[in-house]
């Protein structure tokens, strides 16, 4: 990969990003999709599923699903903003809820990596059903850049 181009550029970028989304078992289990890419912005869909309901009285999807979706989409926006792709690790994410998600409807979101440095990426996201002017939630997050670790690092015995 050339040092001049961003990871979020090139003709095959959509395929690469779809592969990235499919790579995460929890993302697959929840059925996340990437729908659009533009610069350091990424749009995605979290399909409504009855098994993801958090409030059985209203049928509203669980907050944890929205958190997972926004965390994933923000992480992708961070990778898209890089010159050379690397693993990212969430440092923190804060989610503000403006309202409950509408029962029975898919949740869409847009994430934007507005600043990336050598160590940290800053990403904002908004979740909605139709458009960002009627938001369900806003997220603010930071990610550690170059968080690449050895394969199976979490399977080894911890250091004493």
């Amino acid at each position, binding site marked *: 990969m050339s040092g001049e181009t961003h990871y979020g550029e090139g003709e095959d970028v959509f395929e690469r990003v779809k592969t990235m989304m499919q790579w995460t078992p929890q993302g697959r289990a929840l059925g996340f999709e990437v729908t659009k890419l533009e610069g350091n912005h990424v749009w995605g869909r979290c399909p409504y599923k009855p098994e993801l309901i958090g409030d059985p009285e209203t049928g509203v999807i669980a907050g944890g699903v929205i958190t997972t979706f926004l965390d994933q989409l923000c992480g992708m926006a961070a990778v898209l903003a890089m010159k050379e792709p690397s693993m990212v690790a969430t440092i923190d994410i804060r989610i503000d*809820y403006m309202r409950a998600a509408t029962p029975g409807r898919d949740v869409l979101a847009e994430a934007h990596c507005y600043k990336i440095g050598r160590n940290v990426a800053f990403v904002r996201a908004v979740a909605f059903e139709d458009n960002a002017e009627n938001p369900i939630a806003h997220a603010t997050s930071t990610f550690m850049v170059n968080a690449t670790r050895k394969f199976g690092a979490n399977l080894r015995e911890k250091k004493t």
Partner: protein
Amino acid sequence: MTPQERLTAALARIPYASFLGVRAELKGDELTLVLPYSDHLVGNPLLPALHGGVVAALMELTAITQLAIASKSDKFPKTIDVGFDYLRSGKPVDTYARARVVKIGRRIANVQAEAWQNEREQPIAAMHGHFLVSEEEKAGSGQ
């Protein structure tokens, strides 16, 4: 019904808690939610590490359930805002979470939570958040 049974029944009514595989343990008024490891909870298959969103979800569920106990309400409170700090990578083992209700006001409650794996003193993530506990819900507790 014992408090433990009521809690288990309340969690069983939440489809997403079953999707994650979460179960509750109550000792006195202290609640621990347990998330047994499962392959579908992974976010990074190379390490492998639990998805940060899953750990966040566990802490939020713990906070909501602990708050429901503290406010003596059968209804679950609504999340206003939640912040999650990630301290360590979540290993492919069982994860636990506990929450502390810092304050319950007339309308808003402040709650903190922590998640850990093998060692309680080595948390993998922390949460703080605000939740809406309406007067109507508190009044309807019957306790």
